[in-house]
């Protein structure tokens, strides 16, 4: 648990961060977001005192760490930055082991922790342990950077726009990785980004900042449906508000039973293993054939976002998607009417 009380930062007579108070519970994923210059990075870097506080308190657990010597504090807090900053003269293993070494862990413990973290990030330990940073791709380097931040099992992990410098495909992969790692480790995370979609995807709570002031700190759904000010809905963007909402909804919440018998308006045909093979009926316009074969991309899984499910419905021009489980068996369906009918 980490709590910020009245954090303020002024440079001369210019106030960059103004009286920010928020509390991040253990295991939460909090995202700081806002327009450029709103003070989100400054706030983050005040937490590990890379930027000294003008006033305010920081509580880590129940401990007031405002006066704690900076180096000691930083060794308890993980820090991952956009440019990663891996040490080029050290191997991946040595990079990850930095904070444990500073904390004087026994070398056996460090070695096993390095392997554990490489495993967590799906990097083969044998292959990557002795590689040097210049031999890694952007995505691999960022993974190592986050692994390094987690090495000493910190009480909180600070991340400053870590995925901003990679291509969109790698960014999506890394975001999914981050979500998985967060679920597996239960680390408390404070994450800074300027990308609203990234925030909606990852956050358990979002703190929206504007010109140094905290505007709203709530679950994503509250920001979407109950904005505290006009600024909030303006920042989120009115253009695709409905789609953003659907990005916080999952297929299993909209799933209905799938009919396999012939007398319903539409029904599914399945093979011997229970995989859906084609759909009868269910097409909105007359100029398309009534019988449609099911392809791999034209499916949904229970954990998929409704935004993606809707996107597939639009792409394949069919108002219904089969929901399949891990083995590919038909377990339900989602329909366009279902999306419309349900309250947000």
């Amino acid at each position: 648990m980490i709590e910020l009380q009245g954090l303020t930062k002024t440079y001369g007579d210019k106030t960059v961060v103004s009286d920010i108070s928020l509390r991040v519970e253990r295991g939460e994923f909090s995202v700081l977001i806002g327009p450029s210059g709103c003070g989100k990075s400054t706030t983050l870097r005040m937490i590990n005192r890379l930027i000294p506080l003008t006033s305010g308190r920081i509580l880590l657990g129940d401990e007031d760490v405002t006066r704690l010597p900076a180096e000691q504090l930083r060794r308890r807090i993980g820090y991952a930055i956009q440019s990663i900053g891996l040490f080029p003269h050290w191997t991946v293993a040595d990079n990850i082991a930095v904070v444990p070494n500073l904390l004087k862990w026994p070398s056996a413990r460090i070695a096993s922790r390095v392997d554990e973290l490489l495993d967590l990030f799906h990097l083969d330990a044998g292959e990557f342990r002795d590689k040097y940073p210049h031999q890694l791709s952007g995505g691999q380097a960022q993974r190592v950077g986050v692994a390094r931040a987690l090495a000493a099992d910190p009480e909180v992990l600070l991340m400053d726009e870590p995925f901003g410098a990679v291509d969109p495909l790698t960014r999506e992969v890394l975001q999914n990785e981050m979500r998985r790692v967060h679920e597996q480790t239960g680390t408390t995370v404070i994450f800074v980004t300027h990308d609203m979609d990234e925030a909606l995807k990852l956050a358990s709570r979002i703190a929206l900042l504007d010109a140094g002031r905290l505007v709203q700190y709530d679950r994503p759904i509250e920001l979407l449906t109950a904005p505290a000010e006009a600024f909030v809905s303006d920042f989120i963007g009115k253009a695709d508000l409905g789609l953003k909402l659907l990005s916080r909804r999952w297929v299993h919440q909209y799933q209905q039973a799938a009919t396999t018998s012939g007398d319903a308006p539409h029904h599914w045909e399945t093979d011997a293993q229970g995989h859906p093979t084609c759909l009868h009926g269910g097409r909105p316009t007359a100029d398309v054939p009534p019988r449609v074969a099911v392809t791999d991309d034209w499916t949904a899984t229970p954990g998929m976002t409704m935004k993606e499910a809707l996107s597939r419905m639009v792409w394949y021009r069919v108002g219904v998607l089969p929901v399949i489980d891990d083995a590919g068996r038909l377990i339900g369906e989602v329909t366009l009417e279902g999306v419309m009918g349900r309250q947000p």
Partner: protein
Amino acid sequence: MNHDEHDGPRRIANRVLATLLVASLAGAVLLPFAAMAPNRLVSGESVSLLTALRPWQTLGLAALAGTLALACLVRPLGERRGARLTLVAAPLALLLTLYGLGDYAQRALTDASPAARVSQGAAFWVLVFCTSLMIVDAFQRLGSSLWLRSGYGLLLVAAVAALFATGTFNALSILREYFNIEDAFVDQFVTHLTLVGLALAPTLAIGLPLGLLAHRRPATRGVLFSVLNVFQTIPSIALFALLVAPLSALGDAVPWLGALGVAGIGAAPAILALILYSLLPIVRNTQAGFAGVDPATREAARGMGMTRRQILWRVEVPLALPVILSGLRIVTVQAIGLTVVAALIGAGGLGAFIFQGLGQYAIDLVLLGAVPTIALAVIADFLMQILVAVSRPAGAR
């Protein structure tokens, strides 16, 4: 514009080699290979290469010249194989030239009076110089590793040393002069190295911290570099001269400094001047080395909880070291050369022979001062290159 369109199909792959070969041949034919004089006072009579060398030696050089001509053509070997062939043929030509001169000297003096002297001629120098350049050029084209070049250089030096050791050159006037002054030579050689060492140590002690300061406080850079630049622009002889008066006054005023050796002439002004000349490259390279460390790396180190000292020694220094050592390489070679001038103000060193020889018009003495200085500088440069290569962290190579 493609020049080949005008010259026809390319025949010569390596024009540098071809030029050096032509220069060598021209020099060998047109210039004297050696000079033979009945005594020390009279200038020698020119001896051409064909006269000086034995038939097998002349034939050997001709064969090697032919091989080198083959090596510079596009057909049959091309650039890379031609370069490798050069690395075999050129050193053989070099060693043969050296041996040929020594051998001629021995033969020429067997029937001559004890005062007679044989010395090297212009053709000899052209051949030595050109064959050495051929080797350097060949390595350049092959892009060989430092280790390969060092090993090769070591072999070549060993071969030349063997020639010296077997007394090949003992009949040459320059060697006879050397034997005359052998003790003094060793003395001055050691003095030369000592002067360089005594200058470099304080330079590092002062320059490295200043470089770090210049990196950490950008405001100091302007003043620091301006001052150091001023010293750099003062000609060396002038600087030595300028230091005479203040240092002699200091040596007189403070007795224990005087006892220590601080005086207007001698080692003190020499070392002080060398330090002043060496500071700028060290400070500049140190600052550049630290500046070359990615700020993200530094921020990550800070954010992870390293103390300033830990960041400096564990992160910044290892990454800045190659650039800093490159600066040391520059000043080492520079200092070896500048120490020659120090002889003018009584500091000693190999420069003493150069100036003595110039005064007496004894070219042999001049060479005895100059050639070892050049050799020292080349060897130091090579050793420093190896040091720089070794200092590169494995990840950053």
